[in-house]
């Protein structure tokens, strides 16, 4: 496969054709923040934190680096005033839901985001979809999915599947940036199939 050279923050970077700008930046050690990106999963473009400024054929555009394919001569800027502003507002928007998530606190510090800028709504989930996509793409169990749309969208464990599959897995807990996947699972377990934990407890006692 042919290689493509592009410029990221003034640095010449060469990567195989078909790579994303995010991959190219990572290969050159240039950090771009992400929430919904995961090495094992298909690129999603949902959180929009990885937005960068690209200049191609004289036109400047704002694109998500996790999906944007590299092209010859592309000029990428990862930390312009506008890029930083987009990221700051996105962090502030997400902190309305999960103000104490460690990942968001770290990002807020870096981008000067005010965790109290917007009215709070304590749902704790940032809709990165990592749990949903990990369960579907890697584990192929579909035990957790999205329900509803728009701002009332939420993740939900499907009791019939979760009761069978989650007990020995729980791998999504560690990749969740806010611990909400874990909370949602235990809520489902406690309400929908509490028997198994009791039974397991009885055995170990």
């Amino acid at each position: 496969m042919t290689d493509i050279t592009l410029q990221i923050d003034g640095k010449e970077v060469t990567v195989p054709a078909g790579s994303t700008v995010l991959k190219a930046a990572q290969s050159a050690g240039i950090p771009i923040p992400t929430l919904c990106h995961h090495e094992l999963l298909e690129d999603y473009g949902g959180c929009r934190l990885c937005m960068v400024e690209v200049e191609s054929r004289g036109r400047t555009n704002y694109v998500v680096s996790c999906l944007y394919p590299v092209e010859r001569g592309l000029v990428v800027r990862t930390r312009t005033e506008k890029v930083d502003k987009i990221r700051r507002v996105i962090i502030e928007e997400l902190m309305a839901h999960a103000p104490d998530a460690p990942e968001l606190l770290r990002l807020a510090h870096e981008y000067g985001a005010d965790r109290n800028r917007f009215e709070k709504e304590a749902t704790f989930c940032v809709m990165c979809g990592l749990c949903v996509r990990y369960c579907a793409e890697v584990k192929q169990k579909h035990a957790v999915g999205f329900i509803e749309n728009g701002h009332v969208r939420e993740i939900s464990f499907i009791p019939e599947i979760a009761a069978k599959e989650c007990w020995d897995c729980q791998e999504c807990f560690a990749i969740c940036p806010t611990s909400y996947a874990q909370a949602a699972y235990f809520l489902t377990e406690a309400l929908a199939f509490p028997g198994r934990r009791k039974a397991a407890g009885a055995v170990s006692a």
Partner: protein
Amino acid sequence: MPRLQTAAELDELRAGILASRDAAKPSIAVCGGAACDGLDSAALGAAFAAEIQRVEAKLDFRVTGCHGFCNKGPNVIVGPGDVCYFEVKPEDVAEIVSCALKGEVVDRLVYRHPQTGETAVHMNEIPFYKHQMRVLTGDIPRIDPTRIDDYLAVGGYGALAKALSQMTPDEVLAEVKKANLRGRGGGGFPAGLKWETTKNAPEKTKYVIVNGHEGESAAFMDRAMLTGNPHRVLEGLIIGGYAIGAQQGFIYTRHDSPSMARHVTRALEQAREHGLLGENILSSGFNFDVEIHYDVGIFVSGESSALMRSIEGNAPEPRPKYIRTSVSGIWDKPSNLNNVETWANVPEIISRGADWFTSIGSERSKGTKLVSLSGHVVNSGVVEVPMGTPLRTIVFDIGGGVPDGKAPKAIHFGGAMGGSIPISMIDAPLDFDGMSKLGAPIGAGGLLVMNEDTDMVEIARYLLDFLVKESCGKCTPCREGMWQMLKILTNITEGKGRKFDLDRLADLTEVTSLGSLCALGKTSSDPLKSMLRYFKDEFETRIAGNSAARSQPK
């Protein structure tokens, strides 16, 4: 009905239909469009059918699609001469039938100007109609949408026959490009260029699609077109499929419009029976069929990539468009999507030629445009005017101005993703580029007139309240940005506005436009932006009033 084998057989069939019809014979057309249907035009239609049978009247009767003048419904048009009756009730039926047979007019049911009291009998004398140019919609009152013969009688499928028998696909494409037909769904992108991209994509399997979703608030012209004359849209689609080299078409429409679904399904069946769809159409060697698809009920379903996901059977979530759907759409195959009105223009361009088409309209926007006219306006309904028509003509000459002696304040275009401009700009021409520059892009064509009492903060809040529920929720700026804008606007309207709110709104609108994944998110803050551009003082006054009220001792 045996399948038509050639263009000549189609001409013969048409000649037969026309020979069996007498233009001087009285006719009655009851409007079955959405608004008239809501006023129970079905009962009116039944009353006409019964009366015609009772007196054994020799006249043509049909229930048609939308006549256009929606707020005066149920509409009835009596021919010959297009005598228009408004707000017709079942008890008026006997008199209309007996007068129609005698060539007389029922004076009490004709149009009466609300101020001057002047009457107008014929369609071309009524202010609402006489300032229009009804190229796409003019036939609708003559067509029972469930009868292909009615469409054939007005020249239907003549353009398809011409394209297949006299033109190569490249020539069809060249004609559409020359006509500079621009997409009527909102963007105004040249349809010919889009067709060419799909045509030139290397993949052999290609799709053409009608976007008949029309989820935009205050827009109702596409459903009038597709429900009232489904064959015209279908004919455009088949011609497009021929030009592009597609084998399969889709009509994507709404699950909640039963008459539209019925009419489109019936049109597809009839076109198949007549050999206008299927294998080797009119012996041209061109094979093409069309399927109807229904949405799942959210606005974002009408976004091109979400619509294609939906046709694939997936949830309608937009895909990032760094590769265009015209190259990689449904099942990653090149897919050309145009909206109902764009497709409806195609047969006309092929029959009458690009030169005729470009003789209508403004310098960069050609042809006519359907507009859904509503809001604080005397006459509301589906309007068709040449591109470039001043908004004043639409609002005052056709719309009859603002009712109840109020002054107009603003014109809103493009629904929940459009924008509002102050009435001082009413002489602006209806034009894709001009309106976009003003901050009120035509969008699909929903025009809302607002009077002096309109609270612009409330309008901004209302439109966001609509959009918040229509977002798919995948990307942060759309899902969260709109939600926060809505909260802030709700606070302002409830007297809880804060000084820093305008700052927060400015950041939210900017980031939502720049950062969202699809067009719904990117343009969701456009109405608010236009209102902050032209009516910022209303927001400031409101917020100042809020804080003043707070600081008063209780």
